[in-house]
């Protein structure tokens, strides 16, 4: 019991430390704190996606539908439903609840199918939401999207306000960071903790059993459909939360959050970072979004390079960057680098 508490404390402290130093180290390599905040937000969605793909073994090719609808729900809450009394927690809660219902309905239909079929169906549903939000102009402004979203403050603290001034030499100045970053970092910490807990729980073990052999787990007495549906809804809710945060942070949300490319992004981030690893999706998001930011400033060929990296990772590093550090994988970096 004591060891358990110890392990949890160690996990939380180390992760919190990592999140705290990230924007400063990021400055050294040409990143900036705004991008760091966006990375964390998208990382939440990728972490949710990984819960489904990595641990339940279910590939959704439509996670943009949760990300986008979460964003729209938050935006509408702030702009139309409660414009005068907007509350951050209520807004986020609303977005998550909307997405949970959406995921429950779609999941109930889609979960009755398997593998490839499931991917195709989620892809098609995501496309459906894209067209609904595109055409429902009264609500969504169609092509232009919803703009001028002011994030509700927490008490009297505005998230867009900068942290106090403090010169940190090569790491930049503390005031370059807005309160958005620590706020998002705390949410990420909680999401990672939750996802660690979930994977280690009985629920996570049943999911793993279903992933390895669905029929057998059914014979043992578990209902695979229920477990997979639960995983789908949880995974969707995290994507919805990420979308809501992103909409509030950007101050706008448009239909590009609902595209196939966006769904593909979550897949790419998770695979490059490392599927079935806790930190992989977050690290994958950081790597790809950082590279996109740096490389796309220099050449138009960024998306092509991204595609080539993606194919190379699938062919040569099926465990992704993080997964390849794991013992026994084909590209065991820690062994190659003689770290052990």
């Amino acid at each position, binding site marked *: 019991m004591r060891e358990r508490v110890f392990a949890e404390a160690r996990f939380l402290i180390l992760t919190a430390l990592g999140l705290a130093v990230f924007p400063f180290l990021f400055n050294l390599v040409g990143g900036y704190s705004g991008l760091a905040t966006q990375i964390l937000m998208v990382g939440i969605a990728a972490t949710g996606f990984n819960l489904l*793909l990595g641990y339940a*073994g279910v*590939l959704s*090719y439509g996670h943009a539908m949760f990300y986008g609808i979460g964003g729209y729900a938050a935006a509408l809450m702030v702009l139309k439903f409660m414009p005068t009394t907007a509350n951050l927690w209520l807004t986020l809660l609303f977005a998550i609840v909307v997405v949970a219902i959406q995921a429950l309905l779609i999941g109930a*239909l*889609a979960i*009755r*199918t*398997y*593998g*490839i*079929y499931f*991917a*195709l*169906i989620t*892809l*098609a*549903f995501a*496309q*459906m939401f894209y*067209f*609904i939000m595109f*055409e429902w102009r009264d609500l969504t402004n169609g092509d232009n999207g919803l703009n001028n979203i002011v994030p509700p403050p927490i008490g009297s603290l505005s998230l867009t306000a900068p942290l106090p001034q403090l010169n940190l030499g090569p790491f930049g100045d503390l005031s370059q960071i807005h309160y958005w970053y620590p706020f998002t970092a705390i949410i990420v910490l909680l999401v990672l903790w939750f996802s660690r807990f979930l994977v280690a729980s009985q629920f996570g073990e049943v999911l793993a059993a279903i992933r390895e052999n669905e029929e057998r787990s059914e014979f043992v007495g578990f209902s695979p459909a229920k477990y997979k549906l639960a995983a789908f809804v949880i995974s969707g809710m995290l994507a919805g939360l990420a979308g809501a945060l992103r909409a509030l942070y950007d101050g706008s949300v448009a239909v590009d959050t609902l595209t*196939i490319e966006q769904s*593909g992004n979550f*897949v790419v981030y998770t*695979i490059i970072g490392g599927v079935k690893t806790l930190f992989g999706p977050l690290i994958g998001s950081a790597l790809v979004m950082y590279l996109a930011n740096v490389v796309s400033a220099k050449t*138009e*060929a960024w*998306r*092509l390079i*991204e*595609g*080539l990296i*993606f*194919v190379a990772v*699938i*062919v040569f590093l*099926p465990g992704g960057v993080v997964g390849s550090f794991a013992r026994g994988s084909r590209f065991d970096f820690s062994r190659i680098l003689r770290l052990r």
Partner: protein
Amino acid sequence: MEAVAIQLFDGTIRGLIYVAIALSLTIIFGMLRLVNFAHGAFFAVGAYVALLLAPKIGYYASIPAALIVLAILALLLDRIVLRLFYAKDPTSQILVTFGIALVIQESLRLIFGGTTQTTQMPASLMQSIPLGFISYPAIRLFVAVSIIVLVGVVWWILVGTNYGLIVRAGIRDRTMVALLGGNVTVASRVVLVVGAGIAGLVGALSSPIFGVDPNVGFSFLVPAFVVVVIGGLGSFWGAVIAGIFIGILQGLTTLVMPAASDVVIYLAMALILLVRPQGLMGESELIRQA
């Protein structure tokens, strides 16, 4: 009444294109257990082949050219990457074909730019043909007739030849076919190459109507997936019926409520899934294996 007739025709032609793409997807899936996300990119490459070659060798000749280019491309892709993935889980296959699609699409964008261009067509196809009470563009009729012929040829190969026999049997049970002495590996290659060729051919064929841009393939690929889901994976007639149904449904919705014409096909898919998760003519056993 005229408007209804025109939408019916337009819808049927869209539907026929869906049918051709869904058919090649579903046969590739049946034989190789590979869902090809790069199929839309193949379609786009075919459209670009027609765009580039039509001014030089003419629109008609550019269509078989697209088929050949895509067949070679598929053969190369198979040699370089795809063959590594046949034995892997469907998820990795989807991911690698998605990656290939990304690479092809972005290469097209870099080379030709993102703007929509239109393939030149012969003057004889630019006129309208009177059909009783409406007159209808000749190019659209040409595309429709060509796809019907194409689907007929595919049907004939599947049912009337020994190759087709191996493919049809392979869709049901690969191992058994191999045990009985059928060369499944070669048949799989042929199916992949012909399937990619069909995507390219249809891309070239329809490029004067729908225009050519790097994303053109995706706008047909996703509805084609819906057709495969509705019709049932691995089913020939399922794809044909579902494709035409979806096309006409889309056409008629345009008439009543244009804004809903893209949404309606996904609603139809949801409804059909509710009643028949395996699709109209799919076999649940095949889906379980997927």
